[in-house]
């Protein structure tokens, strides 16, 4: 299954900030049930989009040595709906990062206008502090996430315009 809730990065400043966009389409399965006749992107998936944007930013800041786990949603507030046809933009900033964890703040915008805030805490999970039930390999940063960052970097290095 593809569990990926951002389409592409549009900005990436290592260790500091990252921005990604997500275009909402009517063909997404979850919109058929949420809600019938009134498709709205669930707030939980908007949070996930921010978590993926910020999570990759945090992972990259420490060279993807650890698994980066979403540990706490400090704040999630939205004052608008996002529906098919809208473009969401996630702007994430690292507030604090150390060997244990990272704190990020984030703004969600819809078609260019801010519509919410999502602040998160991530835990760094490595071999030394890993609970036994978690796998040994890096299970967070799979190819589908690494490809997103690689695509952004390839595009920017070759001078190709970004998706924005």
């Amino acid at each position, binding site marked *: 299954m593809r569990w990926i809730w951002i389409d592409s990065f549009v900005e990436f400043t290592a260790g500091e900030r990252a921005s990604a966009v997500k275009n909402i389409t009517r063909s997404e399965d979850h919109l058929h049930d949420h809600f019938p006749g009134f498709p709205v992107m669930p707030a939980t998936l908007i949070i996930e989009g921010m978590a993926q944007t910020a999570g990759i930013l945090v992972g990259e800041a420490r060279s993807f040595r650890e698994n980066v786990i979403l*540990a*706490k949603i*400090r704040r999630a507030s939205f004052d608008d709906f996002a529906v098919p046809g809208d473009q969401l933009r996630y702007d994430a900033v690292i*507030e*604090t990062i150390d*060997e*244990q*964890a990272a*704190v990020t703040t984030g703004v969600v915008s819809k078609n260019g206008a801010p519509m919410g805030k999502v602040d998160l*805490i991530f*835990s760094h999970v490595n071999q030394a502090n890993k609970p036994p039930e978690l796998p040994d390999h890096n299970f967070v940063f799979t190819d589908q996430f690494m490809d997103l960052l690689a695509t952004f970097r390839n595009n920017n290095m070759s001078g190709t315009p970004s998706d924005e």
Partner: protein
Amino acid sequence: MATSRDEVFSKVQEVLTDALGVDDDEVSAESTLQGDLGAESIDFLDIVFRLEKAFDIKIPKGELFPDEILNNPEYVDGDKMTPAGLEKLKQAMPHADFSKFEQQPDVSKMPDLFTVDTIVNYVENKLQVA
């Protein structure tokens, strides 16, 4: 300029209301973070980060909440702390009030050492040293 205890308390109160989603009036000096205010493990890390920002201080891992003492078998015997463990904990937490805990040092009661006052004491010490 020195920060008064009331000022420290009121900033700590704000940190805890933000971190734990509780109301101001729930946060009194004697409130325990876990029992009274419902803090979970990740909240302790959140509280540390927020205190660092609110007071512009650096809190090394394990200094405010020295939970790693419990991982040492020398310091724990079944569900009780050994005298050596209790002594170690008291040294590690000069900011906590041990008067109740040391009468019956059950490991399960250790979270009761983490009160709002414990944090206020810690921050006060930290600001005096800085």
